[in-house]
């Protein structure tokens, strides 16, 4: 059957048959780099279009509908405009840090893509500490944001960056703890192990109530981590005009924008992997006929379907809720989410030890 697994496997075999191992490996690196950049661009285009269409649907508008069929090429046109725009650096900014910041934010979200499993056996790097790698690397992006806010020499940017710093550092905790809940149930940090452990049911179904609590906390925390409404205090356009990227324009702004959307994809992909079984089809214990039908759907469609479902939920939040205030945001994390997720982790550990999960 046609699948990503076979394609990647045949390319790999062909490369190692034709070239010597070093060249083959370097060529594979190159192919992967091109794929990632391509994926990055496509994700940016698709997600921005999706956001605009979803928001239009919720706001009784049509959304982009002029460029291409149904406005499909609107984001392409926008990107072209941003590329040809002058890359301005304002006076009196810290030039080096100002120009470096968008690249840090973007590179971080590119690196985080590495351990994510897009389809059955289709993964860049099945590192044995996959989940830890993701949480560790993704928290580096706050440095890029702080750098942008500080280097811009703008008070709005600085306030936005400070908010963002406080927010990401706080919400990293409960996101990490809710990820740990699944790690405890699985007993492994490896992404492929986590997905394989969900063969007979996704963790959100198998893990009783604690898994559902962890899932809800995870969704809230990652919405905050990606700086999206109702936690978009770092940008808060009605308060801080555009927050940390007020001074950015052209392609440098586009990189921030792109990184934001790719980050949304990444966190939703992690959510789908941990709680919704990644590329695993929907299986019900003994309903064999049903399970067979589900198996016919390619694994990549399962993965992207789940991910985009979660992305839709996060977009739904954005277009429905008002924004929190900074102190309320931190209260929510430190007084509610963190204690709940700690207790939840304890509960999950008990369940895992007593083998109460299915």
């Amino acid at each position: 059957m046609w699948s990503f697994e076979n394609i990647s496997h045949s390319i790999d075999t062909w490369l190692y048959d034709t070239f010597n191992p070093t060249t083959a490996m370097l060529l594979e690196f190159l192919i992967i780099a091109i794929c990632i950049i391509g994926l990055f661009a496509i994700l940016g285009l698709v997600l921005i279009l999706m956001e605009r269409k979803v928001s239009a649907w919720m706001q009784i508008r049509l959304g982009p509908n002029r460029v291409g069929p149904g406005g499909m090429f609107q984001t392409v046109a926008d990107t072209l405009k941003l590329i040809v725009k002058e890359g301005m650096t304002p006076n009196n900014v810290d030039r080096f840090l100002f120009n470096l910041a968008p690249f840090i934010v973007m590179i971080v979200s590119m690196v985080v893509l590495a351990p994510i499993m897009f389809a059955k056996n289709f993964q860049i790097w099945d590192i044995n500490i996959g989940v830890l790698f993701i949480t560790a690397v993704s928290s580096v992006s706050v440095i890029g944001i702080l750098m942008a806010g500080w280097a811009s020499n703008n008070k709005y940017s600085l306030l936005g960056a400070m908010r963002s710093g406080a927010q990401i550092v706080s919400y990293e905790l409960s996101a990490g703890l809710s990820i740990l809940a699944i790690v405890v149930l699985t007993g492994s940090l490896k992404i492929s192990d986590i997905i394989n452990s969900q063969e007979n049911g996704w963790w959100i179904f198998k893990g009783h109530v604690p898994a559902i609590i962890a899932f809800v906390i995870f969704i809230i925390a990652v919405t905050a981590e990606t700086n999206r409404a109702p936690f978009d205090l770092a940008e808060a356009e009605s308060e801080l005009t555009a927050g940390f990227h007020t001074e950015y324009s052209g392609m440098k702004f586009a990189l921030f924008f792109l990184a934001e959307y790719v980050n949304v994809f990444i966190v939703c992909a992690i959510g789908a992997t941990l709680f919704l079984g990644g590329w695993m089809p929907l299986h019900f214990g003994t309903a064999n006929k049903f399970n067979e039908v589900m198996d016919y759907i390619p694994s990549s469609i399962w993965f992207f379907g789940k991910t985009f479902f979660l992305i839709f939920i996060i977009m739904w939040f954005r277009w429905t809720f008002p924004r929190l205030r900074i102190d309320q945001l931190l209260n929510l994390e430190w007084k509610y989410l963190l204690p709940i997720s700690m207790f939840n982790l304890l509960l999950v550990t008990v369940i895992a030890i007593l083998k109460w999960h299915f």
Partner: protein
Amino acid sequence: MYRETQIVSDNSLTTAPDVDGDLVINVGPQHPATHGVLHLIITLNGETIKKVDPHLGYIHRSIEKMCESLSYRQFIYVTSRMDYLSSHINNHGCAMCVEKGLQIEVPPRAQVIRVLMDELTRLASHQLWWGAMTMDVGALTPFFHAFREREMINDIMEETCGARLTMNYMVPGGVMVDIHPNFQRKVKEFITHFKNKIDEYDELVTGNVIFQNRMKRVGYISKEDAISYGMTGPSARGSGVQCDIRKLYPYEVYNKVKFDEIIETGGDSFARYIVRMKEMRQSLSIVEQLIDNIPDGDFQAKTKAVLKLPKGEFYSRIETARGEFGVYIVSEGGTTPYRIKFRSPGFSNLCALDHMARGGKIGDLIAMMGTLDLVIPDIDR
């Protein structure tokens, strides 16, 4: 030669930090939250506000001076450009002042039409306020929902008055033209439509936990302070001040219709929000009572072609969507006023902003400005 940077650095108000080393930021004159060219200089301690200093005059057009060279028929229409969201009511106030001076009796039909138009304007203004204020606290979708309903009112206005924003419909002695044949049908359609939608507004925003947390216990102003700052309108009624001109000094047919003066005693942003939400229902009920009872007769009293107010001073007051709007005319007996002074509600409401905002967060300030419902051309004139 003056360089741009020198001008900025010369201005000690905008860039130099306070002696304590506080953070001073400018909100406006171009800022998404000020809904116009209001300039607030905010002194901050971290995220906490220490002082708010509003700077006005960016859209000053000297409307009061302009009115001195316009005749008593003409000057009314300049006031549409002040509070452009309740232009009908501004025009109404001015027309009432001229009628007072000339002792013109307004025919009953014109009175009812005027009140209908006023209340529709109030509804449209409050709808826009609702959308803009929720956008200030970060919810973007309600703005579009509010505009959907406002569009219906604008269509009704367009049919009858010929314009959608600056209607110029009131003349001394009545209204300029009779209502459009479709008017009653369309208003009834609007009433049935909006009755459902206002419940939707409450579901979407009022009950939201995040929204309530953002609005409750912020921007508090006590009843005494509200009075001493001269606050009027829904903003003052949120602090428990009884100040509805429609009740206290009824004009036109307001003493014949049944409606409640909405008073909340909370004094915070949420109380001001609730007052406006309830006022929308009251306006709707006033429109509902009057729409089937428009008496027959003239829509305009017979007046002379050239109006001359007798020598003296004349004052009239009216309740706009934002508060009390006062018109003060000094006449020397000529065809143009000697001096005109407008008392605009936005100005005195803005004055209370500093008092409310101190000790709050930046996000609160934006929400407070939303609940004060500031219209900048109304403040600057």
